[in-house]
């Protein structure tokens, strides 16, 4: 019964979405106030119905209802319950249900937290989101129903892919989808602004926090995915430029550009057209990502089971949404007035240049991802585009952007002067260059790429410090403020910027140092053997057979010695998951602030010894630490008191401030 109820709830939700779209959009354009009044409540109802439907699916998984096809295909009675929960979104159908759950959640949030937005705008916004929802709900119900029955029921399920039986699976997809889907909000705001012709700083001020929150979630989602691949796959890789990874990275790049563009539109009234286009592009990339992962058009380790019929549906939907948006854009954007003027050397220019670089980077990633398809479609043969291409192309494009990250925050709006900037930043520059040249020697051999990476990271970090210092000095010139007073009176959004930018610096340090100095050793180990790596000696003390809830395996007990003293013990495992008969290695990782020690069991050899891979990865956790700082920066920015006092600023016109 429960699956049927869940199914029915989702059908009802689709009906609500249709009603919402109709009444909101027609009501807003015709000015029917009682029609527009439908938008808010219908968003809440949509969310409730979808949550209810989702819970029905989850219950089916948790109670091992193998008469539901989805449960039988993706779960198993021996599967621990957190993974049964995660399995509900482990398949194409289930993940779509998660998608619409997130969408309805965001819609309810917009309905709840937009007190300052006039009713007709809000109706347009919710109406547009409802249109997107209609597409996804219909796709789910027509081609990918997670509630389909399997009769007669299976005796037991086929189990969740062992690679996915991990805490990462519990949290990574929800975070990722919160981000992807969250960009639909700013997209809807943009379409609403184009339709109503009200594209101004107020619009930017409304859109910005929504964008930042979605961006923060996406940052966390991508970082979690990367970290998960690192510890799960057994050889310590953390980014593969795989099409599905790229599908999440492109919206992230454009989302970053969008956030910064909204900043300029909000504060200076410039870039209006560019910002609207970015909003459309970012969400389009989210939709494109959804298409790429499910249509079978590209090969990827992450792709769901592919079905070209589903691909046609999503593509059709994609063409409709993006095509209509871009037509609307081409029609209405020329009528938008120009914003303020600014010099070629100014904060606006720096931000614009930054945006352009981010978009070019995203376009290059898109090109590389789709190029094999282009050539194949033109009958020009089959090639493969992998990390060598992306690394070669991405880094040179981002390098100037990283350089600008130091300059932008410290430039003045509208007009800045190069001598002024130079004098403020000269010490930061000199210290960065000197340190970048010398530091590699402390880690080992000197390496030009390492030096360059460190230069970028130091530059960003030091420029941030200079920025803070300059601000504090300016403030202390005032009424004899103490340093503490100045620090606490700086807005959260400023700290958000500093935190996020330092996050980028930390990230760059992680990537640079791990690429430059990681050590790998592949050895054959019997009990009693040792292997040295860096300053560590690792000794295999024992190998014992063990059992888990749905697997059997072997666990090694490895002593970690420094200067002959045992400092730690690690337990890498090799598991065989019984249902799918799939072997998996569970690497043992000792996480440290300055390095990870990574041990993974390979295959057993005929003489009883084992292939063991040992890695020393310096500063690798700074990669995800940096990403976390970026997300934290976003959250700080959104918690700024300006947003909490939003209602007071409602009728304020174009506030031109000189703060950041």
């Amino acid at each position: 019964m429960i699956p049927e109820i869940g199914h029915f709830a989702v059908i009802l939700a689709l009906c609500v979405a249709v009603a919402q779209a109709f009444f909101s959009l027609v009501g807003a354009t015709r000015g029917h106030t009682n029609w527009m009044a439908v938008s808010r409540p219908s968003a809440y109802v949509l969310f409730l119905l979808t949550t209810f439907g989702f819970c029905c699916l989850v219950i089916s998984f948790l109670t091992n209802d193998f008469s539901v096809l989805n449960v039988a295909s993706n779960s198993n009675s021996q599967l621990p319950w957190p993974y049964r929960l995660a399995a509900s979104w482990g398949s194409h159908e289930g993940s779509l249900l998660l998608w619409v759950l997130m969408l309805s959640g965001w819609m309810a949030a917009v309905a709840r937290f937009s007190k300052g937005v006039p009713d007709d705008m809000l109706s347009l916004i919710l109406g547009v989101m409802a249109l997107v929802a209609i597409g996804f709900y219909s796709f789910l119900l027509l081609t990918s129903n997670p509630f389909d029955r399997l009769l007669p029921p299976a005796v037991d399920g086929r189990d969740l892919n062992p690679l996915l039986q991990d805490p990462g699976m519990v949290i990574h997809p929800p975070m990722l989808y919160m981000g992807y889907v969250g960009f639909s909000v700013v997209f809807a705001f943009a379409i609403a602004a184009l339709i109503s012709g009200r594209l101004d700083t107020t619009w930017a001020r409304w859109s910005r926090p929504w964008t930042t929150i979605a961006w923060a979630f996406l940052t966390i989602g991508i970082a979690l995915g990367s970290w998960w691949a690192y510890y799960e796959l057994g050889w310590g890789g953390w980014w593969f430029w795989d099409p599905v990874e790229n599908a999440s990275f492109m919206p992230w790049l454009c989302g970053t550009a969008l956030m910064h563009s909204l900043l300029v539109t909000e504060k200076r009234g410039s870039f209006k057209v560019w910002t609207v286009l970015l909003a459309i592009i970012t969400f389009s990339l989210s939709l494109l990502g959804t298409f790429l992962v499910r249509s079978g058009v590209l090969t990827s380790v992450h792709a769901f089971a592919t079905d070209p019929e589903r691909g046609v549906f999503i593509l059709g939907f994609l063409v409709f949404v993006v095509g209509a948006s871009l037509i609307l854009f081409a029609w209405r954007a020329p009528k938008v007035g120009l914003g303020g003027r600014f010099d070629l050397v100014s904060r606006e220019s720096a931000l614009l240049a930054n945006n352009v670089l981010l978009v070019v980077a995203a376009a290059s990633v898109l090109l590389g991802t789709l190029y094999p398809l282009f050539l194949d479609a033109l009958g020009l043969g089959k090639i493969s585009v992998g990390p060598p291409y992306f690394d070669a192309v991405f880094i040179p494009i981002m390098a100037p952007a990283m350089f600008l990250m130091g300059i932008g925050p410290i430039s003045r709006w509208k007009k800045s002067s190069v001598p002024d900037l130079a004098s403020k930043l000269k010490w930061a520059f000199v210290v960065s260059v000197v340190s970048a040249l010398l530091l590699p020697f402390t880690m080992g051999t000197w390496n030009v790429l390492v030096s360059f990476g460190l230069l970028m990271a130091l530059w960003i970090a030091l420029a941030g410090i200079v920025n803070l210092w300059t601000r504090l000095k300016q403030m202390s010139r005032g009424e004899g403020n103490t340093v503490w007073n100045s620090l606490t009176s700086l807005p959260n959004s400023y700290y958000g910027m500093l935190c996020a930018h330092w996050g980028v610096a930390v990230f760059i340090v992680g990537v640079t140092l791990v690429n430059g100095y990681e050590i790998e050793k592949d050895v054959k180990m019997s009990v009693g053997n040792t292997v040295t790596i860096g300053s560590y000696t690792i000794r295999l003390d024992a190998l014992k057979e063990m059992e888990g809830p749905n697997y059997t395996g072997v666990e090694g007990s490895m002593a970690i010695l420094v200067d002959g003293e045992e400092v730690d013990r690690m337990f890498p495992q090799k598991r065989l998951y019984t249902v799918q008969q799939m072997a998996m290695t569970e690497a043992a990782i000792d996480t440290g602030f300055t390095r990870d020690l990574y041990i993974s069991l390979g295959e057993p050899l005929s003489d009883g010894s084992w292939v063991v891979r040992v890695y020393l990865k310096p500063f690798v956790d700074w990669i995800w630490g940096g990403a976390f700082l970026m997300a934290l920066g976003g959250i700080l920015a959104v918690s700024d008191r300006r947003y909490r006092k939003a209602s007071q600023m409602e009728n304020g016109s174009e506030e031109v401030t000189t703060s950041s």
Partner: protein
Amino acid sequence: MIQSMRIMGLILILFCNWTFAEEAPLLAKDPELEERVKAISLELRCLVCQNQTIADSNAGLAVDLKNQVRDMLREGMNERQIKDFMVERYGDFVLYDPPIKSTTLVLWAAPLLMMFIAFWFVVRTVRRRARSIDAHQSSEDADRARDLLKD
């Protein structure tokens, strides 16, 4: 007495370490050769995997190809010859790094081209906008001046 016991204990421990803690042999019989195998393997695609190199993959074909690479290196073939060997049998698809051929020219040139076009476009728009805003303002000023003169 205790001192000598300590020394005995120490010797015993050291002795144990010597006898049991043998350094594990490297998997590869020839680490230098293995480095070269790995370097080339990182540039060859595993055809039965989804988007992995033969270095990263443990699939049967990947292991076979790695062995083939190793043998060819032992025979004295260089990287170019080995890659050609693979492409002859599996086509360009087996190269993980897209080759620089006429069909991939667009792929390699596009990012740089996009950067230049984007920047040219931006600089032009900023300058044009500045000029039109100035023109707009100056025509406003002219209007105001006329109004003032009229009074």
